């Protein structure tokens, strides 16, 4: 199971990396008469018999009801490795929409694939930053105790109670009105790490504070190990917790990315991101008449499930920390 999950994660990574070749259309190009167009079906067979994979051209029947039908008058064969695209069709037959189109008639599949690059990148790096910062500060607080512990815990509590949205608005005001996707990427990554570290630190601190009272920790200290050396022996006890935190942070940060766009901190409407796509899919209409707009949620579910499977398998049981009572070498 763990291997399958790891394979899924690798596949997602590969698809995101190879987005320009995999996407059949540019992600920001709106196609007229394709607003809310449903996914196109691939056919192998028609009344004339079996054929190489083909699709039918979509025809808009009712604009306000967003009714599309397949035009069965002609087959449109899939073309492989043409114009630098893995799969495409003759441009005269309209766009190839594997996953349908969004409200502006843009290729949802292309936006999903391109969006994975930015969104997963921000979420993974932000989560890693939060884990690094939280683990370091939590371990220092838990292993040293005393005033340093109080100071770090107080700072963590302070960050936790900060009204983050207002903080973001203030931070946004210090930047130019238009920020490039690259700048938005790094700003968001830093912001996520800053906002998410206190939860991690508090958890790690509790684990480390408990661990330092155990015999093996006393033995390390008795052998003359310094504070940092002791900490390196205590911190592995928090690995399970950190893995689960990582898995939980990813979807939270992906959702946060869409929230930030409300205050002008996101990637902007034309730049595809999973957070932005999720925002498009939260409309009631999406659930009712255009369920393909919920595909980003499905993709997010797959990523989280795969991450949890991998992390859970490594932690022994998903959702638990390592058994701290087990004998140690």
């Amino acid at each position, binding site marked *: 199971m763990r291997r399958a999950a790891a394979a899924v994660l690798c596949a997602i990574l590969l698809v995101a990396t190879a987005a320009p070749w995999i996407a059949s259309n540019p992600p920001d190009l709106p196609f007229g008469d394709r607003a809310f167009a449903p996914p196109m079906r691939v056919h192998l067979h028609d009344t004339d018999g079996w054929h190489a994979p083909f699709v039918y051209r979509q025809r808009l029947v009712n*604009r306000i009801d967003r009714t599309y039908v397949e035009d069965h008058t002609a087959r449109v064969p899939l073309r492989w490795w043409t114009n630098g695209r893995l799969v495409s069709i003759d441009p005269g037959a309209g766009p190839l929409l594997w996953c349908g189109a969004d409200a502006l008639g843009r290729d949802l599949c292309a936006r999903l694939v391109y969006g994975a690059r930015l969104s997963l990148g921000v979420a993974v790096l932000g989560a890693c930053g939060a884990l690094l910062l939280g683990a370091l500060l939590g371990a220092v607080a838990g292993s040293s105790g005393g005033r340093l512990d109080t100071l770090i815990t107080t700072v963590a509590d302070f960050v936790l109670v900060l009204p983050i949205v207002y903080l973001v608005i203030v931070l946004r005001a210090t930047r130019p009105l238009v920020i490039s996707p690259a700048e938005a990427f790094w700003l968001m990554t830093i912001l996520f790490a800053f906002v998410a570290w206190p939860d991690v630190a508090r958890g790690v601190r509790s684990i480390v504070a408990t661990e330092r009272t155990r015999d093996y920790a006393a033995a390390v200290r008795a052998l003359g190990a310094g504070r940092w050396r002791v900490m390196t022996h205590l911190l592995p006890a928090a690995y399970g917790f950190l893995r689960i935190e990582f898995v939980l942070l990813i979807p939270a940060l992906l959702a946060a990315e869409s929230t930030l766009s409300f205050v002008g901190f996101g990637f902007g409407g034309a730049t595809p991101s999973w957070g932005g796509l999720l925002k498009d899919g939260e409309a009631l209409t999406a659930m009712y008449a255009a369920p393909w707009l919920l595909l980003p949620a499905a993709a997010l579910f797959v990523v989280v499930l795969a991450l949890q499977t991998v992390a859970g398998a490594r932690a022994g049981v998903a959702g638990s920390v390592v058994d701290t009572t087990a004998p140690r070498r």
Partner: protein
Amino acid sequence: MTPSRMFRLALVIALVVAAVIFSRRCGAPQSEADAVPQNGGTLVATYRTEPTHFNRLVEARPMARLTALLTQATLLRVDPNTGALVPRLATEWTGTPDGLTWTVTLRRGICFSDGTAFTASDVLFTFQAIYDERVKSPLALDMRAKGQSFQLRAIDDHHIVLTFPSPFGQGLAILDSVPILPRHKLQAALDAGTFRDAWSASANLSDMAGLGPFMLQAYAPAQHLRFVRNPHFWRTDATGQKLPYLDELEVQIVPEQNAELLRLQSGTSDLTNGGARAEDLAMLRDAETAGRVTLVDVGPAIDVSTLWFNLTPGSKAVADKPWLAQEAFRRAISHAVNRQAIVDTVHLGAAAVVYGPVSPGHGDWFVPDLGATPFDLARARTLLTSLGLQDRNGDGVLDDASNRPVEFSLLTQSGHTERERTSTLVGEQLRQVGIKVNVVPMDQRVVQARYASGDYEGIYYGAQANSKDPTGSRAFWLSNGPMHFWNPNQPTAGSEWEGRIDALMLQLAETMDHAERKRQFTEAQQLLADHVPALWFAAPHVSVPMSMRVGGATPTVIQPPVLWNAEELFVLGPRR
């Protein structure tokens, strides 16, 4: 089976079928057509904004207007569907031939909701409050002719004389926007200079009184406002039945449009804040077919979203990008935008192409094809080239004489799907002629703050219109108006054509003859189209959804579309 058993069986089946039909008829709302208004019941409406004040004289926001509509009454009303003047607190009015002096007869024997008699002194007090400098009433600007206040005096308790200091085009229709407030409740606050604080959102509701159909009984912040029947309300229907029909009207505060729609669909609310989005129409039509909601098309909207640039002299936008201030640049954009594509994609066809702020919803004020700039990329490119904007480095983006790319930021309201999508689509369309648009969706308050401080290059946004008459949007047309988007609050008109529009709008305010008013307004529209200070693309068709329980509704394009005649609404059946 014997005949007698067959007969018994048939009888049982018939009885069961009859019982089912009977129970369904009892449970289902009666149809509007055959409905007789019944007293009693509660309707639930949803509204997206929180009230900040309950006094319309000091607050112009939609919620203050709604509260005034429900709890206060005006001397007369302009019927939003017919435009006719309808008696309210005034029963009749007679004017001098020059239209300057009007003798208004007030309704006798009526009381405020606290039982205090209504007299002419309340009318005089209301105007005293409007003109009081300390009150800073948003109504004060409109209640002047050539800058002079209207003169009012009471002949007796039930007659007043209203004198316009100079010809006033809107005439008595202006009184539709003035709720008459209780002197006995607010005179002390006005004298003490605390009128602005009275009836604020945190005020004691028992201190409020009004002549409207309802009384505000409870306000729970971020939850709801509960209005109950005013037992002293003076209106009756054609059969002599006392109005309002409803016992109670609850206005729930639901900031999110999807949640608002869900409540309507699930039957927990009966009315929404306004029109439905184009993308929701298919779903609402299905719900209408299933008998859950009713959908009324009230025609094209009168508040059309606008794209404008910051053309304030000395602004950073103009200093950095002087081509923004060039008419040819804005005209090129107008030619480069495919308005029909916006109608088809953003509004799914449920909109009309417009080239100015006046839409077909404004009735005969609208002049078809005035200022039309057809979609023409070649023409757009020619205009841009004439400004010296060319792609000098082959990156697909035009460059100005200093080799800086021709790009601008466009702020828009995040969460407002129509504005976000139109901005994105316009950005994509302008890319075809080499203009780079950086669309920045932001919180509504941030957009408003940036507009107020002048810290922006372009904005795609809009303001709510409360009247079809052009004098109702003077804040937009006049160069000293706060909503003269591209260059607001000018001390004196900054250009000759803006000065001409100012003069035309002031003339229009003083002109009584409709044909002449129309000629003046058409000239103002033509001037606007000639100088392209801003751009308009599409006026959406407004479809108002309601639950099947709502009777007596006559929706209109003006806000609030259904609650404007709340006293005549009644309940058609039980809640599902």
